[in-house]
């Protein structure tokens, strides 16, 4: 699955992050960068690719109400 929406990291073991969304969780590889539990992140292609500030993560839902980009 490939949501392209922010999820929150709830655990990190070695280079694997567990990321939770509204209805599910998944694990993704941290390839590069520094991440911590509680960070909001974008996961794509099973990799953590970007950190998202909390206020932007919250704004994502408003964005999703509009047409596709």
């Amino acid at each position, binding site marked *: *699955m*490939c*949501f*392209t*929406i922010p999820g929150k990291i709830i655990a990190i073991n070695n280079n694997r992050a567990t990321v939770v969304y509204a209805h599910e969780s998944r694990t993704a590889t941290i*390839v*590069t960068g520094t991440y911590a539990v509680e960070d909001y992140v*974008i996961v*794509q*292609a*099973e*990799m953590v*690719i*970007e*950190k*998202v*500030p909390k206020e*932007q*993560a919250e*704004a*994502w839902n*408003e*964005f*999703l*109400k*509009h*047409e*596709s*980009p």
Partner: protein
Amino acid sequence: MASEKQAQILFLKYAFPCAGITLARGHITQDEFTLLKTALKKELPIPWETLERIFPPAWRRIFETAKILHTNPHSLDTIRTYYLEFHNAYIEKNDGSYRFAPPVLKELCRVERAPVREVQKNYYLVAIKKNIRPVSNFICPDAEEGTIVSVHYAYAIEKLDP
């Protein structure tokens, strides 16, 4: 027909990284998402009407680009030119739903030309604006260190001339 097939495949390569947003909005099902991914992996063309139904904003912009260029919107060159030369300008002017997009999303949605700095089994590390970003090699598996690739979200899309 061969070039039409290539154009359909090229469009899907560039558009697929956005399908995650389309899925999150509920505009496509998980099964349709999986179908797109399978088509991409096997390089199977998807009919224009299906692609236009799933990615309507991209097609609106491609049609606008084709009108400016006086070219066929379904041609390989128009699709590539749209993504490489016109796509980011739509983001910068907050076209459509980009008006509501968080800055991180707008940054990830840009199509960038990026040199491959490191090749790993399933991904590349590419350099974008002095940052190193991991991108999947699922769509473009044959790049080497130093190759310039186009990047959309977390995917390398295709190799480009330097």
